[in-house]
């Protein structure tokens, strides 16, 4: 058993590939910084201070506005297992996870924008011509749209870890809403709170698309958007280096804090199932909770409905015949498929190698550095958001004049690596469980290598593998970060085309494309749910 396990070699290769991607980006940044040191230093000015402050401020507000209502909604859902709209809410709350940010941004504009469905109502209410929701308020609405459902689901998940017996006991002891909140629900919610809040904060700090489309001008710009603008519009690499440095330091601090809090950095795509908790709420509480759930439902359903309504108003026939749309669709699908496959391959190699090393190590020994890197290495890509990796490579390749030719490679690799934490979360439990069951048997029967993969591993990980593939594809399909940097007329994805149509005020086209893109991503996620529910 002392022969080097091929699984470990594959894992090291996978880790190396991730290292090259991240390392290349850092090399680009460092090279640029050395190249123009004074420029990079002088970029730490009041503009950057303002951008950094706004980045943190909008993230803090978004977190507060997402997490506090989520506590109420999750508790209401947990206490009313038989509420008529419960299943609908849970299903609907799963959607934003799959929805590309640019599609959601369009939905919010279609609802609350200058020419949105509510514009007339808002004009009447406020008494002045409604100017549309841009800037901080637009960013906050979009962030809450994404993160309220996520936080709700995570809190509900926490609440469902309360043992049924404890709930029965609370009911038997006659605990009212307040007492049961204090003794039963709050303890688990409090335990989950730092992790959930941290995750939401992190997502908002690194949010790019929302700020790009809904933020406006230098007053509502985050570091990520400023990096993009420095590279694509101002051609100011020195500033980009400084901004990227600030962004890395910021995310590193947030991630370090999150790790201390034990946060689950990859989020959770699991849909909590109906709780078996007894319904014990009184009449007043029932009315209050129903209201909370209904408001949350409308808040999430509103933009979704607006996407559909405004999308259907677009000239869909003309869009369907538009060669640019065909090309972008084909490009998007091919790149997403490649990114998904690469993501699954890398994730699988890391997962298998980690398990193989864990098996080989004596039971009480501490894991080696390599094993720890295989374990958490993929998580560190969360410290370097796609824009940062893209910016690094952009600068590295700037001199060669090949920046736009490399676009497909960048989109595929960066998106593949960014989806890895999610893919590993889907793959690892299945692979480790199968390994725990089969490892001895395989060793004693001499089933190894490709035979083992074909006969033993593949059947047990096929479904989580499909889940990971579809999830990675959905993420990649909706990505705007990398393609915004590297995209050109030659290489356009659907989100890039959508952004271009928005930029040239072809709003109806944009709405139609958003509906189309949203449907593709939702179909992928439905595939995920189907493969998951069959396991």
């Amino acid at each position, binding site marked *: 058993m*002392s*022969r080097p396990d091929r699984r470990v070699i594959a894992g090291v290769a996978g880790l190396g590939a991730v290292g090259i991607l991240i390392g290349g980006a850092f090399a680009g940044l460092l090279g640029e910084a050395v190249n123009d040191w004074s420029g990079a230093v002088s970029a730490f000015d009041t503009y950057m201070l303002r951008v950094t402050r706004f980045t943190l401020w909008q993230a803090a507000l978004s977190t507060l506005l997402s997490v506090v209502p989520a506590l109420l909604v999750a508790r209401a859902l947990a206490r009313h297992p038989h509420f008529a709209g419960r299943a609908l809410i849970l299903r609907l709350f799963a959607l934003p996870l799959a929805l590309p940010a640019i599609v959601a941004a369009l939905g919010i504009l279609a609802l609350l924008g200058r020419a949105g469905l509510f514009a007339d109502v808002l004009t009447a209410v406020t008494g002045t011509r409604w100017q549309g929701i841009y800037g901080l308020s637009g960013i906050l609405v979009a962030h809450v749209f994404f993160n309220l459902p996520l936080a709700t689901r995570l809190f509900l998940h926490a609440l469902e870890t309360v043992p049924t017996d404890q709930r029965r006991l609370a009911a038997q002891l006659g605990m009212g809403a307040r007492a049961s909140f204090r003794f039963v629900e709050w303890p688990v919610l409090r335990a989950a709170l730092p992790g959930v809040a941290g995750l939401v904060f992190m997502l908002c700090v690194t949010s790019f698309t929302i700020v790009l489309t809904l933020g406006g001008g230098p007053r509502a710009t985050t570091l990520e958007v400023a990096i993009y603008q420095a590279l694509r519009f101002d051609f100011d690499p020195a500033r980009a280096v400084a901004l990227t440095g600030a962004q890395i330091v910021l995310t590193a601090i947030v991630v370090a804090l999150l790790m201390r809090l034990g946060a689950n950095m990859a989020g959770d795509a699991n849909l909590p199932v109906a709780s078996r908790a007894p319904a014990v709420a009184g009449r007043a509480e029932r009315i209050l909770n129903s209201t909370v759930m209904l408001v949350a439902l409308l808040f999430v359903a509103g933009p979704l409905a607006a996407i559909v309504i405004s999308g259907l108003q677009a000239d869909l026939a003309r869009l369907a015949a538009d060669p640019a749309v065909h090309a972008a669709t084909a490009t998007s699908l091919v790149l997403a498929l490649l990114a998904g496959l690469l993501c699954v391959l890398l994730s699988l190699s890391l997962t298998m190698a980690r398990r193989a090393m864990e098996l080989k190590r004596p039971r009480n020994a501490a894991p080696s550095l390599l094993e720890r890197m295989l374990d958490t290495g993929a998580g560190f890509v969360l410290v370097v958001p796609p824009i940062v990796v893209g910016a690094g490579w952009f600068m590295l390749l700037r001199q060669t004049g090949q920046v736009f030719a490399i676009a497909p490679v960048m989109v595929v690799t960066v998106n593949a690596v960014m989806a890895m934490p999610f893919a590993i979360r889907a793959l690892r439990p299945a692979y480790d469980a199968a390994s725990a069951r089969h490892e*001895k*048997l395989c*060793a*004693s029967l001499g089933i190894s290598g490709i035979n083992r993969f074909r006969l*033993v591993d593949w059947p047990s990980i096929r479904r989580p593998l499909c889940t990971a593939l579809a999830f990675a594809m959905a993420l990649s399909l909706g990505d705007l970060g990398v393609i915004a940097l590297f995209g050109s007329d030659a290489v356009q994805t659907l989100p890039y085309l959508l952004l271009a149509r928005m930029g040239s005020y072809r709003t109806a086209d944009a709405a139609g494309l958003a509906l189309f893109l949203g449907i593709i991503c939702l179909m992928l996620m439905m595939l995920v749910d189907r493969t998951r529910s069959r396991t």
Partner: protein
Amino acid sequence: MSGAALRMEDVAFSYGDMAMSFDLAVEPSSIVAVMGPSGSGKSTLLNLVAGFETPASGRIMIDGADVARRAPAERPVSMIFQENNLFAHLDVEKNVGLGRSPALRLDAPDRAEIASALARTGLAGKEHRLPAELSGGERQRVALSRVLVRDRPILLLDEPFASLGPALRREMLELVRDLHGERGMTILMVTHHPDDAAALADHVAFIEQGRVSALAPSSVMFSRDAPAAFSAYIGA
């Protein structure tokens, strides 16, 4: 097939802070019941022979050759665990076939062999069932069928019938005894039940704190001449 002689010489292994050292000599074709308190090292002893654990030092001799450094599949040994003996996604025939070819490339003679092993263990007609569609006893019969087609001179049983009811357990032990009568393989069997040991084993090895503290014929071990610690353990 006939049984092979097994000898463990100063086989050292540490599990956490418990240091173990095994010495054991087993005659070809005998059946040895391995007994002892929980945590004494019974399963570790079997795992060392099977190759799932590698000893720090010492020799494990099977028919005169030291196998202590060989991979599990390269040892002349088959093992049946308490559970997880089967791949849940493969049907009965394939699970048994893996004993013939780890790539599951089976020719006509292989298939005939598999069919006869299944018939011998009373599983004829269940070739295409999945493990989930079988009872606990049937699943262990599949594992026994695979032992038959693998045809190795040593069989290790790590409490494979512990979760079965008394009648079923007796039935399975009888099957093992019959198969032993036909094939004559050497059997090491971990068990907690003195009845099982008395019914099947010709020798009993008593394990205490990582050592073989006694090895004697069953007739001795289940008599008044047994070591006091063993009598205390079985409550005799």
